[in-house]
């Protein structure tokens, strides 16, 4: 009974949180705050999507930038070169990502453990280098820049002309919610059971009638689909993409970290991972700390430390990813969520 009450309380809490998120732009118009929220939703979507293949199915892909990049490039290239509206071009990008995932799955799923990880990296690198090397289609290293998005209209009625961050806020929120719901649906279906069986023991799963090939590919397909959608969104939101922003190995690693830091194989894990990672990395990137220290008079603007903080710290926001992953793997291998649960159960017992 207690657990039912708890889950009811959980549902109420979840709905309340959702209501706050929906109402947020009505009360906060600061573009930077909206921007952070958008990044948070985007990271949640990326983490949840990876979680399906990595967390539930146990296949640690470190090449998800390929799907993110495919979604982003598909959309913007079609828009820039052929003037195809992004609401159609997006699906082309997603389709490319899905094809890519089938190709990668066919090649890589014959390999297990570390070999699979290495293969997933190799394929993603091939994708990045290919994009770099066919400038006639992708503009190569220069990247694709879009100055304006066409307004989104339904039957002549302009829904939004994308002049503020608010429409992006809602699209990103919707994307995150849909990805979370999809994960929930997977978890509560035959697919979820089969994915987890494969994660726990491939040979045992195989003997129980589970086609490893089919279900691993299914998991990757679902994962690639939502990762590509995130890529589409990123491209339209930022309006500039190049191989170093949407296709690098670093991005693949960051996507994995979102899930790992929160706790893999759980619905809340990637959300928590995003909540931890995004604010931390943004604080570093945006010089908030340096500005605060300088404004408070603790550090002089012209002092060596001041110049150092202003000039360098912003460049090194990825450092926080490195430190976090080392700390998490060493001290909380089940992620923040698992760590908190462990603490809670220890408290209950003590």
């Amino acid at each position, binding site marked *: 009974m207690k657990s039912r009450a708890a889950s009811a309380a959980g549902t109420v809490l979840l709905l309340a949180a959702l209501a706050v998120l929906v109402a947020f732009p009505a009360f906060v118009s600061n573009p930077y705050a909206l921007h952070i929220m958008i990044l948070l939703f985007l990271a949640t979507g990326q983490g949840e999507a990876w979680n399906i293949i990595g967390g539930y199915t146990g296949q640690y892909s470190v090449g998800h930038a390929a799907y993110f990049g495919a979604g982003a490039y598909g959309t913007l290239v079609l828009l820039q070169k052929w003037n195809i509206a992004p609401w159609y071009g997006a699906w082309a990008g997603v389709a490319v990502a899905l094809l890519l995932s089938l190709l990668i799955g066919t090649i890589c799923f014959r390999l297990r453990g570390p070999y699979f990880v290495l293969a997933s990296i190799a394929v993603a690198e091939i994708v990045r280098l290919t994009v770099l090397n066919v400038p006639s289609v992708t503009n190569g290293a220069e990247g694709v820049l879009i100055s304006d998005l066409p307004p989104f209209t339904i039957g002549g009625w302009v829904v939004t002309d994308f002049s503020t961050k608010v429409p992006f806020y809602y699209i990103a929120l919707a994307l995150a919610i849909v990805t979370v719901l999809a994960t929930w649906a997977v978890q509560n279906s035959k697919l979820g059971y089969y994915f987890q069986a494969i994660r726990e023991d491939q040979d045992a799963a195989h003997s129980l009638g589970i086609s490893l090939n089919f279900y691993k590919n299914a998991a990757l397909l679902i994962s690639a689909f939502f990762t590509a959608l995130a890529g589409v969104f990123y491209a339209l939101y930022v309006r500039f993409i190049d191989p170093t922003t949407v296709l690098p190995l670093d991005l693949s690693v960051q996507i994995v970290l979102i899930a790992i830091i929160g706790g893999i194989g759980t619905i809340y894990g990637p959300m928590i991972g995003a909540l931890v990672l995004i604010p931390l990395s943004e604080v570093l990137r945006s010089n908030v700390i340096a500005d605060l220290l300088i404004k408070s008079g603790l550090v002089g603007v012209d002092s060596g430390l001041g110049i150092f903080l202003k000039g360098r710290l912003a*460049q090194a926001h990825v*450092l926080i*990813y490195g430190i976090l992953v080392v700390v998490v793997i060493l001290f909380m291998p089940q992620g923040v969520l698992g760590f908190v649960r462990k603490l809670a159960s220890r408290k209950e017992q003590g």
Partner: protein
Amino acid sequence: MVLVQALVSGILIGGVYALIGIGLTIIFGVMRVINFAHGELMMIGMYLTYFLFTLLHVDPFVSVLITIPIMFAFGAFLQKTVINRILGSLPQNQILLTIGLGLIMSNTVMLAFTSDYKILTTSYSSSSLHIAGISVSQPLAVSFAITVAITAALYWFLMKTDTGQAIRATAQDREAAQLMGINVRRMSILAFGIGASLAGTAGALISPTYYVFPQVGSAFTLKAFVITVLGGMGSVVGATLGGIIIGVVESVGAVTISSDWKDVLVFAIFLVVLLVKPSGLMGKSRM
């Protein structure tokens, strides 16, 4: 003639690749840990060499003598404090941990020295030797000679000394080695130290002909995987061979196909090897 030229410079650069690969393969052999921070160790070697040269005017090739012990100590320290704690955990977690270590190294270096490209210009950086109509970059030739010397010394160490044999025994069967009274913990520290110093040496050797910057490592980490998987994870002979092969594929590929696609070629070969013979060329015989 162009092909012969490419072949020769491929073999020369392949020697440096072999050093990187051998380091990775020894670490994997002894600990079964794939070190994703390997390229970053090389990057640190490059910075060491750069500052030894610009501040103390130590010739890059002489600086190897300083780089090797420093990198050995750094590698041993990493093994003792961090890597050792995760030896028994999931391979995925080991990979992520070393990725994290790599990010910490590259971003710390960036914090300290910015992400600017640094160029180490020696009097001989762009000079070349002409032998039988083939021009050979002088720094590459010297670095190849040093590579050969180090590799030979390493073989001698692994085959002829007691410690070397203990390392090989640990790589073959960790548990059996432990039962035989080998101090496996010490061997792991040694292995990571050796691996790090080989990576650092490779960094020192290429710094006269390469840009020095914080992110230079990741490309070499990937290359190191390709080399070790090609040769067979854990095989020193395989890594030597793999390094030379990748060097030749790159430089011949750059001439015959295009320099833009040479890395794609390397990764494609990598995938084919993973699929057709995941145990690599020398997969059976470890070390």
